[in-house]
């Protein structure tokens, strides 16, 4: 229903608000007298039934008069009537006048008969829907008259995954992964070295008890590893010994080119120092004697 024809459009305005039985907003007077009707169309249908004829042979003129009389009576009883019912009354009064005057050909305006037919159609349609709803509700209904399986057997669902991948997927995954690693994992193999600091510590520790000239290699012996590490140990200890000599901690002696490097601690024993001092005094005295 895309378009509403003119005549029904006029009726469109005649809707009454549907009232819930216990609605607080419901007019109590209306509730008593008209509450049983679901709007003016329902009232009209009820009145139409009182004509006791097939709705297709209904006298709309008579129906309009019945309706107007009903409303008149209600007003005499000083009942407040909802606006929709009054609007319908006004419209029916108009319809009545159109039906009573001879047909006029005045352009597009629907004739009284056409308006009446539209009203009759609406009443028939409402009636038909009422009957249909009754037929529907009288059917054997599931859960009331007929019953479904009380204890349905549960279908267990076994989910199975189907994995998908293409050869290209693996090849590109492999190539990009290997490539990524070959670039980012350029690692320098960690060289084993003896740091200068470590060499100093070793020399300090070892030279404490060494008073005689001793070849450097002997200190290194327990530390000397193989290959590259050995070179590192030699270089670091030699550098460290030079530093320690500068600081006066050790003394270094090399008797010939490429000869063994000899080390000894520069810190003497106390008796040695006393001896030296005695020796020095002795020399001083000897010079004085001279």
């Amino acid at each position, binding site marked *: *229903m*895309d378009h*509403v*024809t003119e*005549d*029904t459009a006029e*009726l*469109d305005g*005649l*809707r*009454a*608000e*549907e009232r*819930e039985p216990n609605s607080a907003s419901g007019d109590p007077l209306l509730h008593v007298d008209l509450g049983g009707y*679901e*709007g*003016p*169309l*329902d009232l009209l249908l009820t009145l139409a039934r009182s004509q006791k004829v097939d709705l297709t042979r209904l006298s709309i003129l008579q129906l309009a008069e019945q309706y107007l009389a009903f409303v008149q009576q209600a007003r005499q009883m000083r009942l407040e009537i909802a606006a929709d019912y009054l609007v319908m009354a006004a419209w029916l009064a108009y319809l009545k006048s159109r039906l009573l005057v001879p047909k006029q050909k005045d352009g597009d305006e629907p004739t009284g008969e056409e308006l009446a*037919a*539209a009203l009759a*159609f*609406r009443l*028939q*349609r*409402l009636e*038909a*829907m*009422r*009957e*249909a*709803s*009754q*037929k*529907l*509700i009288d*059917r*054997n*209904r*599931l*859960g*009331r*008259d*007929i*019953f*479904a*399986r*009380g204890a*349905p*057997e549960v*279908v267990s669902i076994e989910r199975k995954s189907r994995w998908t991948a293409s050869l290209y997927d693996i090849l590109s995954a492999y190539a990009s992964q290997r490539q990524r690693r070959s670039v980012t994992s350029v690692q320098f193999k960690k060289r084993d070295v003896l740091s200068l600091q470590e060499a100093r510590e070793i020399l300090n520790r070892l030279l404490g008890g060494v008073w005689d000239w001793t070849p450097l290699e002997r200190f290194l012996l327990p530390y000397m590893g193989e290959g590259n590490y050995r070179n590192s140990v030699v270089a670091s200890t030699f550098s460290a010994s030079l530093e320690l000599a500068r600081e006066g901690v050790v003394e270094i002696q090399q008797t010939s080119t490429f000869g063994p490097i000899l080390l000894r601690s520069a810190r003497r024993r106390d008796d040695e120092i006393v001896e030296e001092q005695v020796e020095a005094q002795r020399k001083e005295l000897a010079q004085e004697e001279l």
Partner: protein
Amino acid sequence: MTMSEAAEEIASIQDARQRQVERIIEALLFAAAEPLSVSELVRRSGADALIIQKALDHLRTQYQTRGVNLVFVSDRWAFRTAEDLSFLMSENVVEQKRLSRAALETLAIIAFHQPVTRAEVEEIRGVSTSKGTLDVLMETGWVRMRGRRRTPGRPVTYGTTPEFLDHFGLGTIKDLPGLEELKGAGLLDSAIPASFSIPSPDDSLDLTEDEDPLDSDDPLLDEEVQAE
């Protein structure tokens, strides 16, 4: 083996196969809480639709006189207790809310006139429809929002669900009681003068030409649902 013996053997193999399909369908339908469509039966049994249809017809006949019947509801098949035994079933009845007259009328109008907007329902009933009435119908699971009518205001269209057919024991929407008479009398037309095409209720999941789909994130929808 003669020709006729061979033919007999083939026939007996076919019989055995047909019986097995019947057993499978019996089991599937008996176990299910919901009606099953032929395509679901095809999928779950592995048999083809023709054989299944034959089995369904045979089973329907077999069960016709029994306490449980095979019925066709909402385009699907289901076992249901026989109608005449409803008196026994009082203990199984789940208390159902009685629908008000307004709700019943509205349900009938939606069923016969679907897809139908709220304004059209009101036009037929001559009163405005309260929010509660449509809410109750939606709650029953028998009525659903279908889409939006392609007219100004894009009103929501309503229609019935497969549960509606199931509940009222209707095979398809064409089985609505009195449908043909109403169509013949032109009472499914929206207005006078009757249009030339005779409207017919349509509860298919596909939208009609003048319907747009409902958007789940359509702000208007929420608004309308709340406002109604």
